[in-house]
């Protein structure tokens, strides 16, 4: 991959240039990202795949402003993250980024609805009602909106998390193995919802996954190995992805 041109920059919701991330020092140091440049287009659903330990989560954290790069630069829209302090990063995450984690996505003391609007409430804002209705109806929680997380199934919890990620109309949503804890049926529902968000609500999603079936929902798959991008694939299908993974792991 080459660095995106300036014309591409406006199209990309987030990108990294020459991203290097080294954990630890000296002999014990781990090169989690070994110089990656990649951009994520607006309105696209991108999946990141690769063997365990290949740097997928690290890449996600560094673009999302949860961690900083050892060298290189990361952008959300036109904002370079390296120059931001903790407060600015926090506000950026709040206003411009959505997250779906593998588990523990929800605050147990808040009900589903409150969890969904959490980033907005933290900002002291009210949700855009039309948008909120759209998102919530897409989640399909129905009458469970007033329930607390411990009264929701795993799939419902993840869909609430997804709704939360979308509610502030972020520039980009990051998901790290969102279906990792779900059975295939509920996982498929969640992925369906995410796909819908991209198609109907014009969202941008970057998702790390292990599962070729999940990757098939994406517009594009990026393959990582040893902290480098080794390949990418447009219009993936589960079989194509599986084949590619086999050669990667071989």
């Amino acid at each position, binding site marked *: 991959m080459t660095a995106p041109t300036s014309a591409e920059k406006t199209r990309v919701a987030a990108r990294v240039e020459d991203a290097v991330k080294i954990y630890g020092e000296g002999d014990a140091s781990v090169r989690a990202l070994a110089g990656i440049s990649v951009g994520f287009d607006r309105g696209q659903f991108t999946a990141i795949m690769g063997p365990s330990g290949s740097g997928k989560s690290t890449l996600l954290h560094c673009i999302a402003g949860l961690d900083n790069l050892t060298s290189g630069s990361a952008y959300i829209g036109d904002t370079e993250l390296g120059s931001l302090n903790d407060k600015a990063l926090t506000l950026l995450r709040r206003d411009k980024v959505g997250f779906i984690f593998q588990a523990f996505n929800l605050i147990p003391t808040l009900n589903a609805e409150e969890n969904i609007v959490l980033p907005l409430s*933290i900002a002291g804002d009210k949700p855009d009602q039309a948008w909120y209705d759209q998102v919530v109806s897409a989640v399909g929680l129905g009458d469970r909106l007033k329930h607390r997380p411990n009264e929701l199934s795993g799939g419902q919890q993840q869909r609430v998390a997804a709704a939360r990620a979308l509610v502030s109309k972020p520039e980009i949503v990051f998901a790290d193995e969102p279906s990792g804890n779900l059975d295939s049926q509920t996982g498929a529902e969640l992925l369906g919802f995410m796909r819908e968000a991209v198609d109907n609500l014009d969202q941008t999603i970057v998702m790390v996954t292990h599962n070729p079936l999940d990757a098939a929902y994406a517009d594009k798959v990026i393959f990582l190995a040893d902290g480098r991008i080794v390949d990418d694939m447009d219009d993936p299908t589960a079989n194509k992805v599986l084949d590619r993974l086999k050669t990667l792991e071989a």
Partner: protein
Amino acid sequence: MLKTALKGLSGHKLRLFLTALAIVVGVAFVSGTFVLTDTMRGAFDDLFGTLNEGIDVTVRAEASFTSNQQAGGGRDRVPESLLGTIEAVTEVGVAQGSLFGYAQFIDKDGDAVTTGGAPSIGVNWTETELNISTIRVGRGPTGPGEVAIDASTAENNEFAIGDTVPILFTGPRQDFAVVGIFGFDEVDSLLGATVAAFETTTAQQVLDAEGEFDSIEAAAASGVSQADLIAAIEAALPAGFEAIGQADLIAEQNEDVNEGFLDVFNIILLVFAGVAVFVGAFIIANTFSIIVAQRTRELALLRAVGATGAQVTWMILIETLVVAVLASAVGIIAGGLVALGLQGLLSAFGIDLPTSGLVFKPRTVIVGMAVGVIVTTLSALFPAWSASRVPPVAAMRDVEQTDTLTARRLIGGSIVTALGLVLILAGLFSNIWNELAFIGLGALILFLGVAVLSPFIAERMARIIGFPARRLFGVTGKLGRENAARRPVRTAATSGALMIGLALVTLFLILGESTKVSVGNTIDKAFSADFVVSPADGGFQPFSPQVTRDIEALPEIAVASGVRQAEFRLDGSNKFATGVEIEKAIQTTNFDFVSGDAQSLAAGGLAIHVDEADDKGFVLGQTLELEFAKTGFQNIEVTGIYEAEETFVGSYVFSTIEFDRHFTADLEVFSMANVAPGVATAEARSALEAVEVRYPNVQILNQAEFRAETESNIDQLLAIVTAMLALALLIALLGITNTLALSVFERTREIGLLRAVGMTRRQVRIMIRLEALIVSIFGAVLGISIGVVFGWLVVQATGDLGITDFALPVSTLIVVFVFAGVAGVLAAGFPARKAAKLNVLNAISYE
């Protein structure tokens, strides 16, 4: 298992440190109490050693009993001629007569030299080797008009050789030339007392003891044993006198100090220490149960790999023991600091305690260690037991911990609470042998009961208290509120410590306020006098009757009447006697004879308060056998039964003639004066002010001023008590810090998530602080409510002790309430910062 236990310990440093801190503080207060009283005891020992250096035998008048309240225990004096008798005994090497009385220095500003409670002493100067004082500068006094002063008083008041110093006695004030400054070996001062030494004849004059000594001290001639000396002197002594060996005398003096003051002081401090330990136990128990809960997975894993429930319990107990022993050791040492702190605190309130180097006795170490280990182990017993019930499958689960409120808790808690209440009520309202023990134990049990029950209301209360938080801080406030409400047992336990501290503070504030109002009302009811003369600056140093005489001599004053106090014994128990000139006293005091009259009392006998007389079945004309230190057993007739405010007049009133016969007390504790008819009060006041200038050791106040002065004395006492209880509050706040830190640790993931989705550090801090605020307000509401109920009960029960009116110090209680909230927020400082600094990535990463 021991190894696993130790590993468990080192793996949780922060939690361990926080637990240990609670133990350290509790034990430090216990140890500090002992260190302080032992140190004071040591100082008294040194003093008595110094005072008795070189003396083998003391000769004094016999007394059938002695009183701690009076200098010399109320003994009669010995005639000067006895010195010759003793010097004539061949076994006596050297002898001296000693005199001891009241002499109050006036400083250069014309004010009485204050001593912080220590006495103002006048003595005679002898040039024998038995004189304990050694001249530092100048010489000893050799004639009238000369005085030598102790080095400390001289330095504090800048008295130098050649200065003229006015001194007040029981007789008129006189001027003296300073001729010498002395010390006691290397020591400058006798426990803060001021000492004026006069040539013997002068001393006898000014101390109103012409031809008399208080005692005669003798040292044996060389080669004579102490036993032989005592035998020889006793053989030479006329009846009514005794010779006592110096070791016995020192023991007697020590016992007086120990029983009279130090033991009481020690008990009071130990009560505070007990409160601190009790509050500390709450925190220790709470911390251990949180830690056990947090280690559920780890413990379950141990169980899964084959550890038995008993082994897990033992592991926790061993951990507890190790922490307890280490923390107690630190606490015992920290007790030294507490002792210094207490000393500083008391001296800030004008109470200077005698000290030398800090004294650590083995007993302090043993008791401190025992308290720390036992309390900690007991506190950890339940958590340790519940640890054994962690099922092995819990290792596989990752469920949110919740508190379940069982019916057993409700029933058990109600029973315990009721038991506590019953004990308190029994202690307060029935005539049980040990009322205070009942009330104390009852309070302890009640607090436990309330702590067991309070989780039932904790959740709802937290929501109610936290309601404004949601309004003011949006979702941050809501989260703080929900966090306070989500674990009712934990919230209740955390606020429990604060509840106890605040309940006690509230109780004392109410007692103080009620006492103030009651005493004020009593003053209004008791006095008909226009002016009250009392020791200056609210002190307790009695003053010369000459003051009253001088006041009465003023043309602006119609009558002035002094009041003296001393102790006697009746049916084996000590009673206070009040000595007044009854014809005058009935004019200045609301004093009414129920039977008998002033005239017959003036002629002799004693008058008894009507309540006391009814209680004991004493009637007019009855003859009672009283025991006096000075005159032994005497039959005295009841010549009056009266009605008056008991708290001021006392229950046994003697007129001057009878009083002087049986008591050595010749100083007045207060005195009252009425303005002459036709004289304006302002005019009388300016005349009285002239008297005040001559006697700077007294203050002359009108009734309202006297009332205000008395109230401010009570306030001061209250301030000391509150300052002591502040320690319990400090421990309680430590508990809030502790629990919150553990909760933050427990909610790492949650806080990380909040941070990831955009909560700023500031908002995280606010969230934690709001939680602390809600928990402390919950504790404050409970504590202040319980305190108010306690206070009301105690006031109802103690009407006969002079607290008759229940008064609620509303504004002070509001201050306490606000303080609790602010302190809670401050206590959250550390956990809040910790939460805000949380590493977001670590918190959210899923392994």
